């Protein structure tokens, strides 16, 4: 297998696998936040920004995967 092709495949696998966890995690965060808003609609203003921040933090792992795949591709 050529090195280039291996790099491409590796980068794809890296970002693909790395995105699974945050994807599930963000889904859970959003569903819980929506549940909470459904229970207590007055708290929506407080919950929404916190949800975005926690989702952004959960996204970190996907970001690391992105960095790794970028390093594989271009580094």
């Amino acid at each position, binding site marked *: 297998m050529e090195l280039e092709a291996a790099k491409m495949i590796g980068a794809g696998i890296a970002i693909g696998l790395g995105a699974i966890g945050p994807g599930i995690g963000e889904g859970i965060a959003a569903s819980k936040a929506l549940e909470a808003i459904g229970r207590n609609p007055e708290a929506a203003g407080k919950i929404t920004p916190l949800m975005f921040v926690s989702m952004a933090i959960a996204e970190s792992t996907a970001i690391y995967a992105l960095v790794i795949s970028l390093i594989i591709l*271009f580094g």
Partner: protein
Amino acid sequence: MELFDALGLNGKILLAQLINFAVLVWVIWKFAYGPIVKTLNDRQKKIEKGIRNAAEAKDKLAEMEKREKQVLDKARQEAQEIIKKAESVAEESKQEIVQVAHEEASKILAEAKKKIEQEGQQMMSEIKKDLAELVLAATEKVVGEKMDLAEDKKMVEKIVSEIK
């Protein structure tokens, strides 16, 4: 670091971007954030002051209304008193006048009565005198002789006075 090259990191551009960003922060701080926060604070103070002023004015108005009512009440009371007083004075003077009138009327009446009585008496005495003479003359004619006697005259007078 090949990745840095791949990402296009360049010292000069980074410096320029840093300066650019710093200028942006400074501009927004100085010309947007500062003045707007100041404006908002000023407006908040102004609104608070306005609300306080409005409350004060309301209080003052209520107080003034109260005072006005008091003054009005007092004036009404005074007027009532004056009217009462005037009424009583009028009543008094009316009574006085009526009394005076009564007195005068009774006085006039009494005088009139007295006068009438006097006149009546006078008339009566005159009539009596006339009557006595008339009786005397009639008797003279009936008797046919002159009754010159003092005794007779006296008697006739007595009879006449008894008739009344």
